[in-house]
């Protein structure tokens, strides 16, 4: 009996783990890939992955998923073609190993068969309201805070109308972000699961709500359509103000301790000589 139990347990365990694995891969795709890629839903930021295995060799795809930069930098013509089609937005290195990359390709292959004909990407014609644009601006600057506790955009980004003193310069200027990503749909998808390696760990636990995303898209679309150039760098001005403030503090120290020698030390020395 006991002899039978062990193999049975093993079979059950393996069966469960492979089912769990398939679920993991689907979940992984939803959490890490779907912001930029659909399977049969048209181009978002990156290409529609429906039938990707028919377009390119499997090993090439595995290599690309594992380390997009080395393929993109190698001058590989197909990689260059992809980069141009994605408005030069590079796919980020997600830390996927070849095993997971193969599992993802299997998942994409299965889904490709289920998916219907690729729908042409539909850009909504509706325009955003002024309230949405203004709410988006407030979310951007932090005047209105995100409900799940995400930091406001201006911690790291600025735009033309926010100005160089208004927003941060850790990440890129977002004035033309919508054009760079490839439209409203791409931007909406991106904000749902921010795909950059710096943003993704921060926003993983602080997801933006749909209405917040809409407001931000409205604001960034308005910035994009304004056609303004990126906000200028604030480095020199900020340093200048910092130096002035430092000089003021030095002057304050000089004033506060102006009696430092004359009040105690010099009289004491004089007194001891008497």
């Amino acid at each position, binding site marked *: 009996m006991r002899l039978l139990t062990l193999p049975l347990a093993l079979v059950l365990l393996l069966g469960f783990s492979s089912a769990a694995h398939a679920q993991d891969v689907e979940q992984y795709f939803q959490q890490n890939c779907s912001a930029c890629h659909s399977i049969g839903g048209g181009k978002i930021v990156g290409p529609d992955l429906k039938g990707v295995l028919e377009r390119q060799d499997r090993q090439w795809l595995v290599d690309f998923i594992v380390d997009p930069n080395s393929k993109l930098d190698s001058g590989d013509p197909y990689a260059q073609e992809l980069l141009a089609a994605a408005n030069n937005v590079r796919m980020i290195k997600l830390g996927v190993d070849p095993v997971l990359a193969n599992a993802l390709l299997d998942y994409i292959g299965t889904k490709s068969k289920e998916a219907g004909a690729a729908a042409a990407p539909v850009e909504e014609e509706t325009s955003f309201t002024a309230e949405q644009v203004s709410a988006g601006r407030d979310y951007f600057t932090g005047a209105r805070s995100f409900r799940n506790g995400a930091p406001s955009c201006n911690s790291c980004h600025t735009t033309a109308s926010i100005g160089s003193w208004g927003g941060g310069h850790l990440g890129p200027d977002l004035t033309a972000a919508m054009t760079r990503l490839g439209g409203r749909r791409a931007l909406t998808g991106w904000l749902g699961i921010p795909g950059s390696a710096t943003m993704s*760990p921060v926003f993983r636990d602080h997801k933006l709500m749909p209405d917040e995303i809409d407001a931000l898209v409205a604001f960034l679309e308005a910035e994009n359509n304004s056609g303004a150039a990126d906000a200028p760098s604030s480095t020199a001005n900020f340093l200048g103000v910092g130096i002035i403030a430092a000089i003021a503090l030095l002057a304050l120290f000089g004033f506060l301790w102006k009696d430092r020698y004359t009040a105690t030390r010099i009289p004491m020395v004089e007194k001891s000589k008497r």
Partner: protein
Amino acid sequence: MLDTLFFVVLPYLSLLLFFLVGISRYRKRPFSVTSLSSQFLENRKHFWSTVPFHYGLIGVLTIHLAGLLIPDTILAWNASHARLLFLEVTGLALGILALVGLINSIKRRLQLPRMKVVTNTSDWVLLVLLLIQIVLGILVAINHSWGSSWFAASASPWLWSLFTLSPDTAYVATMPLLVKLHIINAWIIIGYFPFTRLIHVLVVPNPYLWRKTQVVLWHRDRKTVRIKD
């Protein structure tokens, strides 16, 4: 790979050195736990090095510590743009103050023969490390604003991932080079800390703040003990 080395291995190694060497030094050579003040050797140049350096650095470290301990409060504070600018300009000014103090301190130790004598190799290494760190900090502040916000959002969770023994380098792996160098040099300073006079930071004479004042009474006849000029 490098990320693991710099943002997991280095921090733990530095913390290990900090505590093991720090405690061992305090137990074995308690009288070496001092800043070795040189104020009595020279005081005029000393004032313009030690005062800006200490007030600047204590302020800057307090802001870093606040970002680590109360990140949500910092983000809430920064929700108002005027408050954000106030915090950022204050932080930058304090950093510049620390730099001015440190440069004066280095000049004083280089220029005055009696100061050169009491400065050992370890002091020079430390001064250079601190100079690099403060310059990097200022460069990060002016090139990659707003540090107070993104420190709270990105660097703080990374540090907490280290402290809770579940290191997650994703938060810092893609930071700009200047930020990475500032972080790496910070851990080098923390690891080197217990070998240097920085050890005095751990024994700040806090009781001075609340102990009763002491009145010094002179009983001797000054004329009899006076040194003849």
